[in-house]
């Protein structure tokens, strides 16, 4: 096992961030289930995601989901990403790596075992139409690899990266 080279780190981290950002904001804008985005969705991590929304710690993704539903009040609330960036925070991430899980060969050198921090800037629109109020938001994530996705023949549609830490602020 060898850590991923520099180019791999950049490629994998920016691709991972891009996929994540597109899907995540689409999900919260549609108020689709968000649990699959979080480490809470796998038993392979004992740690649950640290979710902080506008300064308040939100215990679970389900609570955040409820807050989003309450916020929407039956109306569309749309999150639109205007800028994002990503850094690899650990190229050889092994935190809580399960020993009994058959990890694919070369997963590490292919950059699949990294932790990635993602910083997002965007706008949130409360309601429909041009007159609807809009605010900026900034959000930071730390993504961890999903160990389950690294097995041979992983379940279909499983997310490769999971939110371990999240910090949201409306600005």
């Amino acid at each position, binding site marked *: 096992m060898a850590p991923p080279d*520099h*180019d791999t780190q*950049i*490629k994998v981290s*920016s691709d991972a*961030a891009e996929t994540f950002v597109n899907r995540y904001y689409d999900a919260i804008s549609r108020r689709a289930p968000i649990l699959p985005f979080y480490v809470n969705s796998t038993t392979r991590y004992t*740690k649950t995601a*640290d979710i*902080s*929304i*506008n*300064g*308040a*710690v939100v*215990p*679970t993704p*389900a*609570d955040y989901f409820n*807050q989003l539903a*309450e*916020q*929407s*009040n039956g*109306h569309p609330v749309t999150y639109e*990403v*205007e*800028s*994002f*960036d*990503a*850094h*690899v*925070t*650990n190229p*050889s*991430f*092994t*935190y*809580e*790596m399960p020993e009994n899980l058959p990890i694919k060969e070369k997963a590490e050198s292919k950059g699949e075992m990294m*932790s990635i*921090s993602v*910083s997002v*800037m*965007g*706008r*949130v629109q*409360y*309601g429909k139409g041009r007159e609807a109020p809009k*605010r*900026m938001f*900034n959000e*930071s994530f*730390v993504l961890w690899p999903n160990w389950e996705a690294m097995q041979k023949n992983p379940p279909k549609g499983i997310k490769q990266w999971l939110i*371990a*830490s999240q*910090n949201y*602020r*409306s*600005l």
Partner: protein
Amino acid sequence: MAPRGAKGKTASAGRETRSTTLNSKSSSRGGISKRRGQGRVDNDGDLDMGAGATRTQHGGDGNARSRGDGKNGRGASKTAQTILKHLTSGDADRISSRVKNPEAAKQARSKANAAPVVYLRVHGLKASKASSSKDGGLSQLLSFLERKSTERVRSKSRNVIIRKSHPVGDYVFVGVSKIDAEEILKLNTFSFAGSKLEIVETEDGLGHHGSATESKETQELRAKLQEILSQRYTSEVKLLKLDALASDTSLVTLGMFDNRERALKTFKGLMAICDGLFKTAKAKQEAIESISLANNNIDNVSQVESVALTFPQLKNLDMSGNQIANMQAVEQWKGKFKELEALYMTGNPIEANDPNYPATLLEWFPKLQSINGNILRTPEQIAAQIAATQPRPIPQHGPDFRDVNGIAETFLLEFFTAFDTDRPKLLQDLYDDRSKFSLAVDTTSVRDPDAPPPPRWTPYLPDSRNLIKISNFNARKQRLKIGTKSIAECWNALPFTRHPSIKDHIDKYIMDCKPIQGLEDPSGANPSGVDGLMITVHGEFEESDKKTSTMGMRSFSRTFILGPGQPGQAAIRVASDMLSLRASSALPNVHKAMEAPPATAPQQQATPVPSGVDATQRQAMLAELARQTGMTAEYAEMCLTQVNWDFGQALAIFNEKKSALPPEAFATNPQ
């Protein structure tokens, strides 16, 4: 509208209004006019609302303006105003007299733009003997114009050719080349089949649009209606009294209410004229807040539907003394008048037929407060009702600042000062050869429309790593700065900055901080990684462009990941530093909303305690909450902090969230 004769009382009231406005005219207050200060008073003393840039300064007689002039700028509303002006100055004939003046034509021509086809408007065909021929004399007129003007071309070297023609009302519009237009214009005042021609240049094209195509009769009528409107307007109370129209002698004399169809048309016409008087919807909204349609025998609002279209922002409406019998008769207005606050419906059959009609009206008009002078709901109640049907943004809380040993606090207090004053030293102290930095620019952020535009983005763009815009791998690689040397080069090229002092202006910042796990261990001793902190800071700074020396404000968000330093170096290192930039916009003041200390940060005790709750009280609350809920002191404090030490709220939140709390939140199992 179905006018069925006068209702004496209101008619006389209307007349009173009229005389007041007439008197006020000399003090240049009067008439339906745009708000003062936005128009220009010309040498007749009339308010000229259409005083656009294209208008020529005319001399004492005011004749030198061409008709085409009226179509510059704002089109119909300007024309309407021009007509009003001439009517009120008592010289309606100018409209026709001035176009006979060749000087006027010349001046109009000289202002024409150099379009390949020039349009002329010819008047006089209708009154000519030729008008009795099959095509109304059009072909005769056209060949007359071509022949006569060709004759006048001195060299006779070319023929004047009319390229396009189109009769509209009393006029014929012709399109010709610019030099031919000059010749044809010379035929102005010539006699054609016993009629004197008027030929002027026009910017109406072939006259498909615009009021210039109206017959003179229509124009005169428009002017008269305009005068009637001006007499029925009270500027002091922004009221337009359109009550008892059928008993208005001036309207009756004009024959405007001879039959139902005519009356309906008249009303539409009145609304169109009103609309034309204002440059912007805002000016209209400010000039007319109230309209009375009382005593007009209206039995269905579709007869006056145009009021809703012309005055969508109307606040007060008087419909009393009409023939509205049920809500169906008001249906056309449903969903309109979104700003209506007061409505009068007394004296309509609906009062007896449908006692519940006020409830329906409140439903249909979202801002309606009072009906027939009875206040049925307050603006606050309306606001609450509206809020209930809109998204409710997730509320803001104070900083979620879960520091460890004051590391984040110390870091932040040093960081921004050092970034402003000594970037090389900052790099040396807190960054190492594996630290990562990148910046990302968001040029499309939401910003305060009144705020000045942001300083130019140029200094940041070469290094912006906004991955939405930067999709090329090499660009992504090159814009990620790794190690002090690379970061130093980048920082060196960035504008000078000045961040507000955190100690003096904490309200200009929002800072959150929390522990994270699994960071790369620079020493390599811990294969499963080390713990660190993630800090997010939102704020603004003043910047000075290095090239242009211009100053400006910029808003930023910056995410730091701090971890333990490499062996033999500083204890703390910046592992990752991501800077996001956007146009300056004020932050929500989350500190005001909640001036409570961070939940688990003992070193933060110095921060101001919330007003009215001192440390002793807080201890008492903590103990009591822990006792009542069975939560640990730590969780009790978190809970109280979230609600700004409101004990009742803390209990409420606990009851709401207790099922979601982890087991470690409880010292003993709650009953």
